[in-house]
């Protein structure tokens, strides 16, 4: 083959020819290399798709990372111990409230002071407790030893100073006293306030305080709106919450100001309904731990969930659940994986997500996320007990103080805590739900609501649609393939095969549109008629065959064998026509004039206009040509001498088909089914347009669904680049890819083996 093999002919040739031959040989070799590289790169394409999707998805399952930024000793030790620690939005500055009544603002990176302010705590009075609001950021109440409380609000103002070309950000702390320097009386008997909680909503501020005797007071402070814009009159209402027993340890008001959690030192929680403040109702009491003693508690973002930790390092989440009688009951929702066995010291919650951080006596911290039940980070940050810890509002930094007065400032890389394998594929108990459920709800009105990222409803939708599609497509496509490939006359086959195959080219958006705007309303109006067609279809063909059997032999002989499909078209058309025209009469006679409402009323079947039947039919029409085409090829390719032999031995054509042709063609038919199923799973436009796209998990064939593919098409344009949602959509694409990859590989493998087998016959 190589031209260099016959050199001798040209031995005397001049250089020109030699040069040309060199060039030709070079070109040949180059082309070979070039084509091989380009051709081989097809594999790269599929690998690239797979690994790129995988790469986008991967960060979802990685934990958080931390990076130590700074470490410094406290300034102004004279201010006393820290009571409460907080970090501002840009995490440049942190604020701490101290036991001697100081507010100290310092830089997170260096620890140097920005502001120091003494609060107007009356002389001779000590601070005995502190309460903070999750909802109204920066609102802090200090409980005092004389039975009063002081309300403070801190905030940080961001402004920009022009400095050369760049604008420099300047952050100024601001301390306000919303109710003036006067203290607010909580306990009229002047007993020290041992636990305090504060919450604000619109113009109302609520204080809940408990004294050492376990008496709980509820103070409502409202400022009347003044027309002139000045400060209105302050209205103070005082209520008493009764029923609490033991020594108070923690007291929380939820964000909606509807419930109070009061926890005593024996780890027992008292859960109150305070919607009607005049008559608070004790909804129930629970022991938070069966063994061990409660050492820390806090509310999660949204104020619905209570996170508690005990002296054995156990952390669990509680929230209320409504039972059948709509009675609220506090329940243990989940236990978190322990990051330590020593006592939990502090639990601090994230400010924009449902995550929290816990510290222990040994100086370890654990970062958790509640919905996904994940321990994202477990690290030792100090040699001694970490007494206070605070998240920056974006959850990207933490400031911690240990018992030796050392401050630790860390940056945290924790972008995707919302997802875990179990939250994607298992049931999750979401806040406000009666039981663990599979739910998909990727957008929420407020950040207080948990995102619900379970892929189960979507996968269920995909499989449901694919199942009914195959139910519709398999009989028609396989039987059609048998009829065309085995029984049909060649002249007729030449026309029938391309006609059905051309449907493969039909854009699915058109099928989807017809399904949604034509078929769905048609089906809704003619339910009995369409069901009648389905039921009577095969009996009709049998009946026609029976009648044909009785026709005189001479007449039957006139039509060549293998033209049955032509003969049967008129009876089928007649059947369709009759069924559709008597459908309204059936409606009136048997189903009170409207089958849809009749079904809902008498059978309890919910009926959506865009339902699975419609999807099944439309997507069936899309996959029939694919299955038909491959299966027909397989049937047709069975060597003629096999079936001829069988027929010669006296078998009927039908027996030959069942015993000889089908077994031989079965791998091809199987591969056709696999490819058809792959198509049904990945099809997007039809499920998008012909279903209501509601992610419900109902087996009911008359209800809609939401498939993985349609979900991607709907939500992808709105997903923020790099967000958890974006990556989950990539994950669902990866799921689809893997699924079709398996189906197609199996199909191709079977087909290649089949080819080898027929090669031998």
């Amino acid at each position, binding site marked *: 083959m190589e031209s260099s093999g016959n050199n001798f002919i040209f031995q005397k040739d001049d250089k020109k020819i030699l040069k040309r031959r060199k060039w030709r040989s070079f070109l040949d070799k180059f082309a070979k290399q070039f084509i091989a590289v380009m051709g081989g790169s097809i594999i790269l394409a599929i690998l690239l798709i797979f690994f790129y999707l995988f790469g986008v998805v991967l960060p979802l399952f990685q934990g958080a990372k931390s990076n130590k930024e700074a470490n410094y000793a406290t300034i102004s030790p004279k201010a006393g111990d820290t009571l409460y620690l907080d970090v501002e939005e840009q995490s440049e500055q942190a604020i701490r409230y101290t036991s001697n009544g100081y507010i100290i603002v310092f830089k997170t990176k260096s620890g140097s002071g920005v502001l120091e302010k003494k609060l107007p705590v009356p002389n001779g009075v000590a601070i005995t407790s502190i309460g903070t609001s999750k909802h109204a950021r920066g609102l802090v109440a200090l409980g005092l030893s004389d039975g009063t409380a002081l309300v403070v609000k801190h905030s940080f103002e961001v402004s920009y100073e022009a400095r050369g070309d760049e604008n420099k950000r300047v952050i100024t702390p601001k301390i306000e006293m919303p109710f003036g320097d006067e203290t607010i009386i909580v306990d009229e008997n002047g007993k020290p306030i041992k636990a305090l909680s504060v919450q604000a909503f619109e113009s109302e501020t609520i204080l809940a305080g408990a004294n050492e005797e376990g008496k709980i007071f509820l103070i409502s402070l409202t400022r009347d709106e003044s027309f002139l814009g000045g400060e209105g009159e302050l209205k103070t209402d005082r209520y008493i919450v009764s029923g609490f027993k033991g020594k108070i340890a923690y007291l929380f008001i939820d964000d909606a100001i509807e419930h109070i959690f009061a926890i005593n030192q024996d780890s027992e929680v008292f859960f109150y309904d305070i919607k009607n403040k005049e008559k608070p109702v004790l909804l129930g009491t629970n022991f938070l731990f069966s063994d061990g003693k409660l050492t820390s508690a806090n509310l999660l973002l949204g104020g619905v969930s209570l996170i508690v930790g005990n002296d054995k390092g156990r952390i669990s989440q509680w929230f209320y659940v409504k039972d059948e009688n709509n009675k609220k009951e506090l329940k243990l929702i989940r236990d978190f994986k322990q990051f330590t066995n020593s006592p939990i010291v502090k639990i601090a919650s994230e400010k924009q997500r449902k995550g929290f951080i816990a510290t222990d006596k040994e100086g370890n911290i654990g970062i958790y996320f509640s919905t996904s039940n994940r321990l994202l980070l477990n690290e030792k940050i100090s040699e001694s007990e970490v007494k206070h810890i605070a998240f920056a509002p974006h959850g990207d930094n933490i400031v911690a103080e240990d018992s030796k007065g050392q401050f630790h400032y860390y940056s945290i890389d924790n972008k995707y805590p919302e997802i875990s394998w179990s939250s994607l594929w298992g049931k999750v108990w979401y806040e406000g739900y009666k039981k663990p459920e599979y739910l998909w709800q990727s957008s929420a009105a407020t950040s207080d609501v948990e995102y619900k990222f379970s892929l189960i409803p979507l996968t269920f939708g995909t499989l449901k649609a694919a199942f009914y599609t195959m139910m519709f497509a398999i009989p028609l496509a396989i039987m059609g393939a048998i009829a065309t490939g085995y029984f049909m006359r060649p002249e007729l086959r030449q026309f029938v095969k391309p006609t059905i195959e051309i449907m493969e080219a039909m*854009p699915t958006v058109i099928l989807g549109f017809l399904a949604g705007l034509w078929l769905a309303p048609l089906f809704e109006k003619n339910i009995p008629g369409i069901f009648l067609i389905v039921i009577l279809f095969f009996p009709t063909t049998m009946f026609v065959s029976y009648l044909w059997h009785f026709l005189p032999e001479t007449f039957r002989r006139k039509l060549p064998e293998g033209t049955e499909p032509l003969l049967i078209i008129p009876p089928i058309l007649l059947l369709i026509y009759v069924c559709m025209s008597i459908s309204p009469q059936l409606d009136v006679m048997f189903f009170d004039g409207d089958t849809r409402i009749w079904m809902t009323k008498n059978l309890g079947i919910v009926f959506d206009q865009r339902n699975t039947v419609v999807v099944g039919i439309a997507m069936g029409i899309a996959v029939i040509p694919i299955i038909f085409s491959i299966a027909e090829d397989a049937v047709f390719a069975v060597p003629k001498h096999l079936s001829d032999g069988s027929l010669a031995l006296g078998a009927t054509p039908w027996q030959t088909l069942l015993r000889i042709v089908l077994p031989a063609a079965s791998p091809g038919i199987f591969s056709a089914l696999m490819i058809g199923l792959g198509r049904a799973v990945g099809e997007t436009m039809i499920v998008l347009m012909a279903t209501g796209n509601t992610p419900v998990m109902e087996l009911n064939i008359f209800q809609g669904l939401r498939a993985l593919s349609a979900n991607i098409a709907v939500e992808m344009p709105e997903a923020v680049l790099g967000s958890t949602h974006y990556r989950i959509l990539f994950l669902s694409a990866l799921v689809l890819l893997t699924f079709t990859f398996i189906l*197609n590989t199996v199909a191709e493998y079977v087909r290649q083996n089949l080819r080898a087998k027929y090669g031998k016959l």
Partner: protein
Amino acid sequence: MKKWFSSGNAYIWMVSGAVSISMIIVIGLLFLIAINGLGYFWPKDVWELNYQDRSGKTIKLIGELHNEERISAKRLQEAGIETPPGQNFVTRYLLKVGNREFGNDFRWIEQFNIENKEQGIKTPEKLLVVERLAWGNLYGNFVALKEKGKVVAKDEPGYIELLKKVSEVSEKRKEIEKISRKDVGEINSLIEQLRLDERKLELDKRKNETTMKPLLEKKKILEEQFKGLQKKLDELNAVIKIDSIDVQLADGKIVDVPLGNITKVYEPNSFTIFEKIIFYAHKFFGFLYEEPREANTEGGIFPAIFGTVVLVMIMSIIVTPFGIIAAIYLREYAKQGPFVRLLRIAINNLAGVPSVVYGVFGLGFFVYFLGGNIDRIFFPESLPHPTLGAPCLLWSAVTLALLTLPVVIVSTEEGLARVPITLREGSLALGATKFETLWRVILPLVSPAMITGLILAVARAAGEVAPLMLVGVVKLAPSLPLDGSFPFVHFDRKFMHMGFHIHDIGFQSPNVDATKPLVYATAFILVALIFLLNFAAITIRNHLREKYKALGSL
């Protein structure tokens, strides 16, 4: 009976029934689309009737019949409509009453509520249909033609004068369109270019008086030009606002419609069959070359057709070489073995990957990763506004090229397999190298197969919507992806697409009754295009087979 059953003939008829119903579905669907799609352009009679509405008041309605159905009385009762007793079924009509500014433009009316039932439906010749730029069609009686608010002509002469004026005005409007789109658009893009130049200087730290001077001068000139055009536009706009017509609506109200708002006026009830055919042709072609109006519920689909065509053209340019080389490698160069088996599995998988997954990949890899990096390196001056880092034409074409690659490979390979081995051996025996054999002998013979593959790829791409929804299609694009201003093909623009247009107007539109006929018409054109391409591919393939048959017998 038993004999009949045991012969198995019953089953043969059963499987035949399956193939028949598949055929009925295929042909039925095509008919459904064709009839509804083509029927949209036919001028419909305008009805005038007296109708008793739900409050019992009799009102006059004028409108086109759009749909008719027989419905069980029960369903109407559930919707709160009283039906005459003893009647199980009633007939109702969907009437397009137009006049959208005064309420719904579609209305279901029950036959029993029409005065004198069917006899009460009249089609007076003089009923006027006014197609407008805004608010959709207007139905009523022509009253007078006015100039600056003064009546200049009435009745028949007025109508004839009106037809003349309407065509004059539409000429003017075309001119306005041209100026505001082409000329003003060009100036805007030049000004934007100047801004980018300035930003580039800033980024390169070369911004100073001397470098800025030419830019500022150019900008001044452009702004002058812009002002000139603006003035011309104002003049033209004033001209088309001078004339108006008075139309009396069904309820007796007289409305004044400026000619500038009118695209077409006609009296369909007076049309002869010949006029109807002309109207039909006019409307059909208008649909193909007009821009959509009123959130895609009126007008044509030209940008969608154009976008689809440009998209598949760019895609073809990308996919063809890759597909052909891969096929050549598989057939001519690769050693048949496990690697080739693997390659085939990869190709089959590429063909089986759901199209929406291509969309996701295209968005992540092409748009955000490649596009984002290209923006950072080549177009830093326009950041943060993305150039290629956002969904656009280029990445749509690349994504579709990846999607259609298997189609081209499979088809070309099939063609290569059909080239008789004798030809190859002959060429090699005469001393040609393998590459020369390929280039001079095989490829020319295979070219029809490549074209077949390409046509099939184009047909597939033209109908694909799901991936495009992620990588660049929009419901309404302000400008075409290919136009007269540099660099002519705008890879960074978003575009419209027929398939997405169907999805959008059929499912996102608030006025489904109004858009349904349009969806059918668009669907018909898309199906016609795709089937035409497929037929072309099949014809070429058959032709090719004949040719090789002849070669093989040599």
